[in-house]
């Protein structure tokens, strides 16, 4: 993992050949209940530089992860890295809507919305095809104008994981707001704000 972070310190982070590895590492961190903002940002950045690599599901998954970091501003920072056309995708729009609800503290609405869109908790991350490096001989042939088929190291993969900690994180955020706002609060209000969860 440190290898990946070192990569992010250099200009290599702008080379989309690393995209598969970044996505795989991010997936591993989410499964390990961690959300690495640096890697997430790196992926979004590569999407911005190489629009053809953009994957709506992965982007939506990253945004869901960022939502879990509230009250930190990770979500806004991720938003800054998205190309406007990305915002047209259905899934991305849904996550954006949830963010809006959470920012305006419309928690009652939020829980209702989440109940109707539980599928958003199932993250899908697309790791694109990973090609092997060309041998010197293959490289020479390519320079001479020949068509060289690069060998495939890994096929394209869709990595999935279920965000079981999502609700807990949001509850922590709500708790943060509530404790900052109230000295005492009626129980019924709390129940409403937490969507009648436990």
């Amino acid at each position, binding site marked *: 993992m440190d290898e990946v972070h070192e990569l992010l310190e250099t200009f290599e982070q702008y080379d989309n050949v690393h995209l598969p590895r970044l996505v795989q590492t991010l997936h591993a961190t989410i499964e390990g209940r961690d959300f690495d*903002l640096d890697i997430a940002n790196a992926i979004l950045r590569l999407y911005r530089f190489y629009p053809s690599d953009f994957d709506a599901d992965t982007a939506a998954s990253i945004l869901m992860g960022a939502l879990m970091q509230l009250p930190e501003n990770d979500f806004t920072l991720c938003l800054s890295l998205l190309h406007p056309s990305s915002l047209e995708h259905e899934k991305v729009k849904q996550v954006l809507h949830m963010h809006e609800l959470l920012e305006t503290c419309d928690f009652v609405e939020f829980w209702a919305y989440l109940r109707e869109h539980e599928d958003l908790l199932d993250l899908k991350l697309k790791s694109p095809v990973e090609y092997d490096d060309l041998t010197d001989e293959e490289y020479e042939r390519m320079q001479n104008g020949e068509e060289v088929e690069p060998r495939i190291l890994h096929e394209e993969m869709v990595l999935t994981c279920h965000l079981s900690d999502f609700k807990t994180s949001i509850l922590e955020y709500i708790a943060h707001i509530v404790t900052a706002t109230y000295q005492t609060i009626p129980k019924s209000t709390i129940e409403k704000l937490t969507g009648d969860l436990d």
Partner: protein
Amino acid sequence: MDRATREERTEAAVPNVFAGDEEDVETANVPKTLREITHEEVAQFITSLHESIMAEDVDRIRSLYERHYRRLSDKYFKEKTWPEPQKVAKIIDEGLFQILYRELFYRHIFIKLRKPVLADRHSAYENYISLFTFILDADAPVPFELPDQWLWDIIDEFVYQFEGFVQHKGYKAHKQAYPEDWDVKVVFNVLHQLITRSRINEQLEAFQRGDNPADVADEFGNHPLYRMLGYFSLVGSLRLHTLMGDYRQALEAVRNIDLSKPKLISNVLTCQVTIYHQVGFCYLMSRRYHDAIGRFEDILYYTRSTDTQNMYYSDYHTIRSKCEHITALLALAHAMEDGAVKDMYRAESENLRKAADGDEEAAAALFKKGAPKFVEPSVMFASLDGSDEVADAASDDTASSSSKLATDTQLQVFLRDFRRRKNMVNIRSYLKLYESLKISKLASLLGKDEDELRLHLHAHKRRTNQLVWSAGKQPLAGTRQCADTLDFYIDGDTIHVASITVSQGHGEKLLQATQRLMQDPRKEATRFLRTRK
């Protein structure tokens, strides 16, 4: 030579820097051929520059660069270029000098003449690459030095030309002619290598620990040229990341720079202003409005207080226009903060008032004025043969509209938060009037039902609760606290309002009073005396 320049510098303490300095430039060794291609003064300047670079005479280089370059540009080259590098090269055939001369030559075209053509952009790029390759490929530190101002200008100009390149209309054509020019990866790599070679981050960390930076730096890091280039590259990275909307990485880049006092940063004024401007903007986009205001005010106060010295600064007008941008952003940050408006924003008071009331157009105007000229990354890697549909759509835009796209993207991100704030305006002005009031009463005052009101109260808490930076910490760090002078909490069904006033130290109060005294002695003196006890 040294004594001459020192005497001449004390003379220059008198205003009007641009006259009567010709003596410094005079030298007996001006080649006759040089005199044939240009004016006498310019020939002298070129020769002196060459000599002082070879002699590693930094003081003389500084004097030539900071005063004479600008003066001669204004005097002889308002509408045309300096003597062609090829012609000069025939007379002074020396590699390093050629590179540095070309740097000045092209910079003049970009900044003063503002009409670079494809060949200019290409040659300027190649020249920078030659320069950086020369500096970075060396086994041992290169045997020359330049004054800090010039080093900063090199880095700043490098990033600036890159920015201009990606946004200009002939982008596609240029890339087809020279596909490798101004590759963003190369630009980053240059900055990155300058940073690592100088071990500037390690040096800064050592300095903060109280250790000696010289111990962690090797021969490169201890050489002033490398050290300063490394330092300025940190700021260059800050700018580059901000241009691409990556605010987090931008702040990471300058994590070891202490932002508590402008003086600590560098003695190059344009560098100081740039750092505070960019960092403040990153804070603004990270919704850390309190910190944004802090940084903007720091630098505006600083430039104001050093204004009398700055007037002799060759880039004075640049500073003034940058300060206008910063003021626009400051007004915007204040609009988000509901804080007190100070009189220095007179220039933007109209827009500030409108933005504070939730006028989106005013906010957008302020944003566009102060924000950097964003670059649209997708343009850079668009395939030029049209095989890539999405990318092609991006590159089909003319450069200016792709930059507009980038700016609009960032503006929209900002406006999302701006719109949320609109709802809070009324609530705060009511809260100011009470020490405590029942939720039901406030609800009826505002004409909203209680549930809706609670929503707004929560949202207000959310917004005013920010990460706040304190001196000595890294820019990204901060403690969570209420960033508003008006705080409240709810107990049961009652809202209790608390006004937090940060108590200033006596020293500060005295300073402020003294400053006011200087402005209008009679009025302020009586007021001051009255409030004293």
